């Protein structure tokens, strides 16, 4: 049976595939953490920074959003080396994904900060709060809540995007799958298997995001 042969090969390849799966998750988590911190800074500067501060952040966001992720990944893989910085392929990949996520999350944060009525800042000032206090206690709690659904979406995009790292030799799920295919020639079976793994992770994320959204929505 074809199915039996596939299951036998899958059993043989279980640890490399598991390693690849962990690598995919690890890199995506690293990128979303880095991207979220960066994105919060970018978003806040894009709304409240002076013109001169806004300019470089705007440029960063537009460059990241106008360039394909694959080009960012290849650039992050090749450029640091000639700058005298030695990054491993997985570090370069995480950097590229994180910078990409930072721009997208920056736009999300900017959008949700701007959606907050300006009266709230004025009210905060009126009761004697300083700007950092207003930001931390009034604006960010609301902004981050409304940015949550698209933030989860960015996470899904990052998991999908991490598959591109196979092209710079990062041993994540897709590269490990390709290695197994190179040995077994079971092309359809293993690509479909990898696809199903991605599907499971992303749908889980989606469901998680939806329930989180409901719970936060109830508190509003």
């Amino acid at each position, binding site marked *: 049976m074809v199915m039996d042969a596939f299951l036998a090969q899958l059993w043989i390849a279980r640890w490399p595939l598991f390693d690849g799966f962990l690598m995919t998750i690890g890199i995506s988590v690293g990128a979303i953490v880095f991207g979220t911190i960066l994105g919060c800074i970018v978003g806040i500067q894009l709304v409240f920074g002076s013109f001169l501060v806004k300019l470089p952040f705007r440029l960063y966001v537009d460059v990241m959003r106008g*360039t394909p*992720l*694959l080009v960012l990944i290849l650039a992050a893989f090749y*450029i640091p080396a000639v700058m*005298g910085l030695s990054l491993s392929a997985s570090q370069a990949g995480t950097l590229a994904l994180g910078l990409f996520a930072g721009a997208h999350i920056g736009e999300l944060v900017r959008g949700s900060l701007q959606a907050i009525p300006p009266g709230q800042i004025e009210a905060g000032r009126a009761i004697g709060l300083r700007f950092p206090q207003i930001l931390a206690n009034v604006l960010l709690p609301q902004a981050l809540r409304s940015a949550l659904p698209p933030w989860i979406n960015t996470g899904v995009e990052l998991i999908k995007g*991490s*598959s591109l790292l196979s092209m710079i030799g990062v041993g994540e799920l897709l590269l490990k799958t390709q290695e197994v295919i190179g040995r077994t020639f079971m*092309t359809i079976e293993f*690509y479909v298997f990898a696809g199903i793994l991605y599907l499971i992770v992303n749908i889980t994320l*989606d469901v998680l995001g939806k329930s989180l959204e409901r719970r936060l929505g109830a508190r509003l």
Partner: protein
Amino acid sequence: MNYTLHFGAVWASFDQLLIGLAIGLGLAVAAVAIGTLIGLLSAFASVSHSRILRGISWIYVLLIRNIPLLVLVLLAYFALPQVGIRLDKYESFIASLALYAGAYLTEVFRAGLLSVPKGIVEAARAIGLTRLQTNLFVVAPVMLRNALPSLGNTFIGMFKDSSIAAAIAVPELTFEARKINVDTFRVVETWTVASGLYIATCFTIAALLRRLERRFPKF
């Protein structure tokens, strides 16, 4: 950091980059054209009365949106021949990108469909148009106009995703840039120029779309 910029090596191959850019645009146009067809069918299915049609559309979008495009591309190029479907690299890439675009466009058109005012549908039915005529001549034009901004964004997204064709050696912009990068080792210059070309193209498309949107007033 001892790196001096020499753009000469990149300018020498600039023609190839431009041809690559044109190929990328061509791939995106073809994929979005087919994807629009798929997206329209799937969007109408998703608001239809038939539970089966709604289910098919839902599963299609769920599957495609949660699987990386690169996996789809590799499946179409390397795995389909196993079941006797032989497509060359252009055909298989356009097929997979179209399928991918179709899922995103389903959501775009679905939102567009829901934005069509009920009154004009009822008016069309009242003057005696059949259901098909109503959909074709009243709902579709209004929906397309309302969906235009998102449609444009999807096109820009697909143009950027055409870079993934480099994985199966389609000679588009990213593939050419990688070749120049490896041939000349002018790393910084190559990727700056490639990225600049993508950004310039994306912004041009976005500007053209804004003009188009202004020409046709929104419903």
